[in-house]
């Protein structure tokens, strides 16, 4: 079979897995999941509930899951955001084995798949900024594509830990725009609101995805975790035509596709990849796919 025929056959195999549609559903479901306990208990959103003389049903008891992205409880098992735990250790200069137990489920889950799967599939700020992307294109606002190197966020994460130790409080937990959306809805916390405002300004008028790509310390933490991970985007060099459309579609940073497209690597190895699947959906010749394991370059 000629190369042309091979490509045609692949193209006819259909568009493949609808990553963006499924991801959007997951993002919205995760956002709503945290609201279910407070709604089921009849407390309503934004923390407006005030009790009386008698004990009332609580979100903690009304549903097998409750909490926020910093910590939640699922069927009695405590889940802790690993980066929040690191900040707490730095701020309190203390350590409790229970914290390790609490962070393991999420760290193992994201560690086994890919660190920044959190960013692509769970984080409500990413969901909002994808809306900003759409809005910007509708309003025809042009912004710079690449304003800060992607590794800056890992250094911001380290800076957050150092600052947490110096100031003795978990610094990102106090300023997190993720917390503003997630906790604002669940119990009315306004912490991090100004951060989100600053991000929206920057995203709309300065740089494309600058927060998620280069600044967010939680993304920086998960970038480091993402150096390993058994689910990866694989490239078929025989099929790739080097059109670079995948790079323009990439939600993380175009440069993480440089090595695979140049034929230097068989997978997207950078810890940044959040498995959003945009590159796979965009590729006109279906040279990209998801693979299990980490084949060598």
């Amino acid at each position, binding site marked *: 079979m000629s190369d042309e025929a091979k490509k045609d056959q692949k193209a006819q195999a259909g568009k493949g897995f609808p990553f963006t549609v499924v991801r959007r559903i997951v993002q919205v479901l995760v956002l709503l999941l945290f609201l279910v306990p407070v709604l089921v208990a009849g407390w309503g959103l934004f923390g407006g509930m005030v*009790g*009386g003389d008698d004990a009332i049903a609580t979100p*903690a008891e009304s549903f097998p899951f409750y909490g926020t992205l910093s910590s939640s409880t699922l069927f009695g098992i405590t889940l802790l955001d690993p980066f929040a735990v690191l900040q*707490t250790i730095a701020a309190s200069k203390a350590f409790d084995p229970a914290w390790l137990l609490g962070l393991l489920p999420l760290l193992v889950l994201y560690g086994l798949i890919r660190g920044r799967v959190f960013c692509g599939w769970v984080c409500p700020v990413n969901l909002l900024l994808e809306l900003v992307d759409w809005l910007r294109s509708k309003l025809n606002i042009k912004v710079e594509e690449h304003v800060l190197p992607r590794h800056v966020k890992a250094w911001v994460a380290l800076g957050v830990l150092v600052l947490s130790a110096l100031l003795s*409080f978990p610094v990102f937990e106090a300023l997190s725009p993720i917390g503003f959306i997630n906790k604002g809805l*669940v*119990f009315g916390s*306004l912490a991090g609101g*100004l951060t989100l405002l600053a991000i929206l300004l920057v995203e709309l008028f*300065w740089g494309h995805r600058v927060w998620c790509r280069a600044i967010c310390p939680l993304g920086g933490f998960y970038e480091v975790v993402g150096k390993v991970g058994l689910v990866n985007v694989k490239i078929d060099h025989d099929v790739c035509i080097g059109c670079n459309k995948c790079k323009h579609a990439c939600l993380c940073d175009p440069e993480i596709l440089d090595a695979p497209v140049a034929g230097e690597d068989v997978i997207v190895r950078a810890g940044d990849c959040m498995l959003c699947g945009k590159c796979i959906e965009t590729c006109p010749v279906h040279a990209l796919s998801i693979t299990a394991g980490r084949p060598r370059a």
Partner: protein
Amino acid sequence: MSAGKVIAGIAAAVLAAEGAWSVAGNAQSKLLRPPGIQSEADFMARCIKCGKCIEACPYASLHAAGPSAGAAAGTPCIDAREQACRLCLDFPCVAACPTGALRDVEKRTDPNAGYARIDEEVCIAYQGYRCEVCYRICPLIDQAITIDFQAMEEDDIHTKFIPTIDPHVCTGCGLCVERCAVDEPYVPIRIITLAESERSGARQ
């Protein structure tokens, strides 16, 4: 300079102001905390603002501190006059805390969120009225609040029933503040929170 850079500068300024406010506001915070706080500094170092204590409180007494609290914004606190802590026997808020910001509470006498103080100028018991609302509502009646019988000046028959707080026993639940019958010109009983007493020195 491009418009984009100006926006970036404004955004950076907003972030810097937010960070500075976090630190400054935190230093002035005197919030009333749920049971299980060990010290305000220890609490602030451990609390990740997950809100699970808020979601676990059967009396919905806990709410998130507002933005004026600086770095403490989003941490759990109690407005005693609106809805005080009921000192549950099983302390679901402490049980819900994943980082030990709230911890080491077993008995109702263990919490140490602060202590109540009465303003003698406004409390009607000091004027000779029988009230004792704070005394009767106190979950630690006859321990944290007792009645001190004092003879009235220039009166051989009547006695003042003065509610007297033991600051070493009082847990700072705030139920006396919620139920106090007086609110003009102001509520004569309030909680000196742990953060406040730490800042001003030991309990007298």
